[in-house]
């Protein structure tokens, strides 16, 4: 991982689709513009859903990492 400062981590491992996405949306709504969120998800659907939502909602997908069955998404709240 980079030296990026994470403001909030959403640990959604073990949650079923679309739970991790919904938790990310909830966290972003409560956050401030410019804040960086990390989502941990073991849900296969998150791999497509989180990038699709981030693009649609016009936030920024900073990084996606994959490590044994768990994906990490780093998202910056852009608006």
């Amino acid at each position, binding site marked *: 991982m980079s030296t990026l400062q994470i403001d909030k981590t959403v640990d959604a491992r*073990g949650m*079923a689709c*679309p739970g991790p*996405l*919904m938790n990310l949306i909830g966290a972003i709504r409560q956050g401030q513009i410019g804040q960086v969120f990390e989502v941990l998800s073991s849900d296969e659907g998150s791999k497509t*859903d989180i990038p*699709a*939502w981030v693009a*649609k909602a016009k936030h920024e997908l900073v990084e996606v990492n994959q490590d044994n069955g768990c994906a990490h998404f780093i998202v910056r709240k852009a608006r």
Partner: protein
Amino acid sequence: MVDEQDKPLSLVMFSGTDDKLTAAAVLVVGAAVMGRPVNLFLQYYALDAFRAGKVSADHALSPEATASQTPIIRGHKGQHWIDLLKQAKDVGEVNIQACALSMDMFGIGREDLDPIVDGIEGVAAFIASASDGQVVFI
């Protein structure tokens, strides 16, 4: 000019079994988070499942669920369909209407419905709100 991706998605909810209600609710969440207005039109057995105090009851599964699939579906960690619909309403524009004909048929009044239901409407009003977006029947 409305972008194709911003057109409403409208679901006619006919089936009242938990598996179909859940499948529909997942679609609703997806459309709502992607910014599409969603209209739900509750008919027949789906309407019955939205009776106040009855949403959390056991609504059984579709006939195609086999004996070996039933415990898998029942034991899945996913959320209940009513919670998915509440989340969809929270993040997006979701309008839930009860079909006036089904209300009449089953003798259901407004006060008999769960508060998640926004109102009662006829089929023409539903088609009007669907406008030129897709309509899904489940």
